[in-house]
């Protein structure tokens, strides 16, 4: 029977990554002075599981590595070794290294074992410091099993021996589920077996406990097999039972005997004459394969690199429930349709209302399946903050709030990097050094809070630090030097804070290893905009900053405002609408370059005529007869000219790229209730299009998104 083990690899990788996650977070919780036994146990278990599975699935490098890790953890767990901070560091490095190895294996890439070898050496150094590691440990992992103990030279002789086996089992033998008959059957398979039972030990009937075994046996076995093979049969009962095996007679034979088996891996199958030997050997090649195969198996693993998601049974149950209700509604409506007359109109309306209700619940329920708690993303931060605070010499307390808040898996994957960037920034630029904090009369330990919560149909993520806050003057100076704003310009605090999202804007005096990676806040904002989200900052000098990210719960559904241009209906994402208004013609100016601008309070906003952009015949080309919808994206605003504003509704986004091709200014399409297709405006794109031939006041470059569109 041959089973393709690679089919279990995906699950193995997933659970191993989870295990590493557990190890990492538990390691961060560990206090070397006072080791919590449950914490160290969970770390040990995770390492142990990874070792067990990785060796089973043939990932020997991973197994070897986890073995030394496990040995150290085991000693700590048993209390024979005091945990040192160095150990924790080393273990954390190992977690990283293992993650890298598993990622490489999963991707089917070649494994670089250089780092793991260094780490293994480090572990061995620690372990050797007190007690030498049993060298058998690593070897055992390669593929030897205890059922093939070392073969003594004398037992390799080609002879048939008659062994006398005296077997006096422990009275509790049966209570461990062991069955002497099974052993005898196995012995009988090895050669000629004679069994005689000994009834001497049987007590009086009164004292007889039928659950105990009082029998003992004398066995004579003639076989070519070695003593160790016989011992193997009694392996599980050897310790308690009285077993003596003595060679009573031997016959030299010239037949090729099955002990060729002992040569396991080097034996060529054709050398073995006895069919029996071949049967015995079927295990071994498979064994060898499991060890050496990963290199060939990897390409297969690569192609099956599908992502999966774990869903709690409650979510599935609620879905099943809802489908049940939908079926009931459907049958009700079906029946109504069969014998419909106008008297039943109200019933029909009720039924349709119920259908709508079912549909909405079902939709929400299905969406919830894709939702994961944000702790998946948050969980990486304790480690990051620990490492960075060490590196920067700052004392930082990280608080995670609302970890159970759920978010669409795709959104979650894409928000990871921007969040990392923001947390790095908060650590590096936001929080002061302990000395600075003392001088400012603050606690030495700074706090960074990550807070996630739901608000309306959105998820909000706040990154709050109690550091020095944004420096108004520094930002202004920088903006003036860069020519982003004019020398004499007066900006509100809000406008100043918005400046940090401009491209190429960094107020850090020196570029550090931590956040000076050439990626600015503009990139963060752009990534968030691409998710149909937004980011803002509030900051009080000396007290700290709060970055607030707002994201849609899902990328598949959008809250849209329907607008009419001529005969076409477009959809504007509701999140990007600032306001809609009837234009006052006095506030509209024509500027050179053919673009109109509209003055909204203190801002000049370029006007985009959708009918021009999309080549639609409008109801009126006169701005006075039209409506303006002011939309915002990436710190820039434009006013879109529309004929009419219709309702707001949730729309399901269909990709243009997969169904047609990318169209400038359009992010997707949807189907409206009456069956017509409606295009969803891409505000970022539209603003970029407006900026192509237009710069707003202040010399502020409108085309902050130029890079994006490229």
């Amino acid at each position, binding site marked *: *029977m041959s089973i393709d083990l690679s089919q279990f690899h995906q699950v193995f990788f997933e659970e191993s990554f989870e295990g590493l996650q557990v190890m990492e977070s538990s390691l961060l919780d560990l206090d070397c002075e006072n080791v919590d036994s449950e914490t160290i146990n969970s770390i040990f*278990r995770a390492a142990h*599981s990874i070792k*067990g599975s990785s060796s089973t699935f043939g990932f020997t490098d991973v197994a070897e590595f986890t073995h030394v890790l496990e040995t150290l953890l085991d000693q700590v767990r048993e209390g024979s070794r005091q945990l040192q901070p160095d150990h924790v560091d080393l273990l954390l490095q190992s977690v990283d290294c293992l993650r890298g190895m598993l990622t490489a294996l999963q991707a089917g890439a070649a494994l670089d074992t250089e780092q793991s070898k260094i780490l293994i050496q480090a572990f061995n150094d620690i372990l050797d410091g007190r007690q030498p590691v049993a060298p058998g440990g690593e070897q055992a*992992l390669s593929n030897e*099993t205890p059922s093939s103990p070392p073969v003594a030279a004398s037992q390799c002789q080609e002879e048939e021996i008659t062994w006398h086996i005296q077997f006096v089992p422990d009275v509790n033998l049966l209570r461990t589920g062991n069955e002497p008959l099974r052993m005898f059957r196995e012995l009988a398979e090895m050669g000629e077996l004679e069994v005689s039972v000994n009834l001497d030990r049987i007590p009086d009937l009164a004292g007889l406990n039928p659950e105990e075994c009082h029998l003992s046996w004398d066995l004579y076995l003639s076989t070519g097999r070695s003593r160790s093979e016989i011992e193997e049969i009694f392996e599980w009962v050897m310790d308690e039972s009285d077993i003596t095996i003595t060679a009573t007679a031997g016959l030299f034979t010239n037949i090729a005997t099955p002990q060729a088996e002992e040569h396991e891996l080097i034996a060529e199958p054709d050398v073995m004459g006895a069919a029996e030997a071949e049967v015995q050997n*079927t295990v071994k090649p498979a*064994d060898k394969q499991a060890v050496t195969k990963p290199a060939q198996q990897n390409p297969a693993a690569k192609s099956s690199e599908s992502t999966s998601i774990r869903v709690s049974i409650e979510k599935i149950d609620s879905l099943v429930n809802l489908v049940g209700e939908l079926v009931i509604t459907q049958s009700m409506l079906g029946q109504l349709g069969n014998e419909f007359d106008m008297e039943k109109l109200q019933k029909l309306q009720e039924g349709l209302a119920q259908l709508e209700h079912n549909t909405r619940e079902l939709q929400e329920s299905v969406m919830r399946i894709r939702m994961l708690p944000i702790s998946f993303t948050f969980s990486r931060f304790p480690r990051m903050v620990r490492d960075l605070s060490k590196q920067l010499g700052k004392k930082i307390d990280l608080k995670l709030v609302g970890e159970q808040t759920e978010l669409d898996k795709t959104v979650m994957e894409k928000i990871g990097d921007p969040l990392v960037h923001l947390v790095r920034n908060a650590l590096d630029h936001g929080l002061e050094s302990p000395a600075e904090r003392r001088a400012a009369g603050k606690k030495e330990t700074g706090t960074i809070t990550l807070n996630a919560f739901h608000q309306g149909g959105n998820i909000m993520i706040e990154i709050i630090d109690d550091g020095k806050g944004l420096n108004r003057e520094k930002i202004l100076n920088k903006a003036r030097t860069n020519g982003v704003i004019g020398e004499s310009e007066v900006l509100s605090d809000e406008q100043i804070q918005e400046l940090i999202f401009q491209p190429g804007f960094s107020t850090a005096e020196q570029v550090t290893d931590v956040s000076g990676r050439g990626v600015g806040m503009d990139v963060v904002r752009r990534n968030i905009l691409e998710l149909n989200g937004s980011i803002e900052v509030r900051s009080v000098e000396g007290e700290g900053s709060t970055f607030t990210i707002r994201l849609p719960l899902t990328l598949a559904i959008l809250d849209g405002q329907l607008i009419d241009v001529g005969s076409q209906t477009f959809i504007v994402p509701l999140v990007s609408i600032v306001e809609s208004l009837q234009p006052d013609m006095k506030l509209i100016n024509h500027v050179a370059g053919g673009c109109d601008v509209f003055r909204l309070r203190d801002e000049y906003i370029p006007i985009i005529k959708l009918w021009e952009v999309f080549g639609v015949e409008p109801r009126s080309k006169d701005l006075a007869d039209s409506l303006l919808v002011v939309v915002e994206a990436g710190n820039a605003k434009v006013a879109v000219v529309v004929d009419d504003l219709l309702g707001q509704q949730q729309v399901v986004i269909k990709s243009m790229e997969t169904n047609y091709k990318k169209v400038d200014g359009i992010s997707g399409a949807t189907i409206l209730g009456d069956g017509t297709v409606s295009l969803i405006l891409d505000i970022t794109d539209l603003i970029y299009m407006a900026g192509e031939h237009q710069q707003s006041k202040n010399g502020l470059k409108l085309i902050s998104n130029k890079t994006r569109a490229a």
Partner: protein
Amino acid sequence: MTKILAVDDSASMRQMVSFTLQGAGYEVVEACDGQDAFDKAKRGGVDLVLSDVNMPVMDGIALIKNLRTLPDYKFTPILMLTTESAADKKSEGKAAGATGWIVKPFNPDQLLNTIKKVLG
């Protein structure tokens, strides 16, 4: 049909074991830790228990001890899946009433051979 209770906290190991056993014609009940296994074992009908040792909630040793207190499981074969390095676990398991052990890593054929032996 012979029913085997497979206990392991690692999903991939559970899958592998189940798949192997089912392929060989056994009925398999999976459990993800000792407590889960104990609860499932109490429903009865299990002919053999195959249990990992290191598990959260209730470990394999405790599971074996607990199972042996149930009249139905007095003589049921219980095999523990251990790693080579955990030699002391073997004796602990034996003291708790385990029938035998299988060392990780094992491959499907090794697993089936050992099970066949025990079930006779």
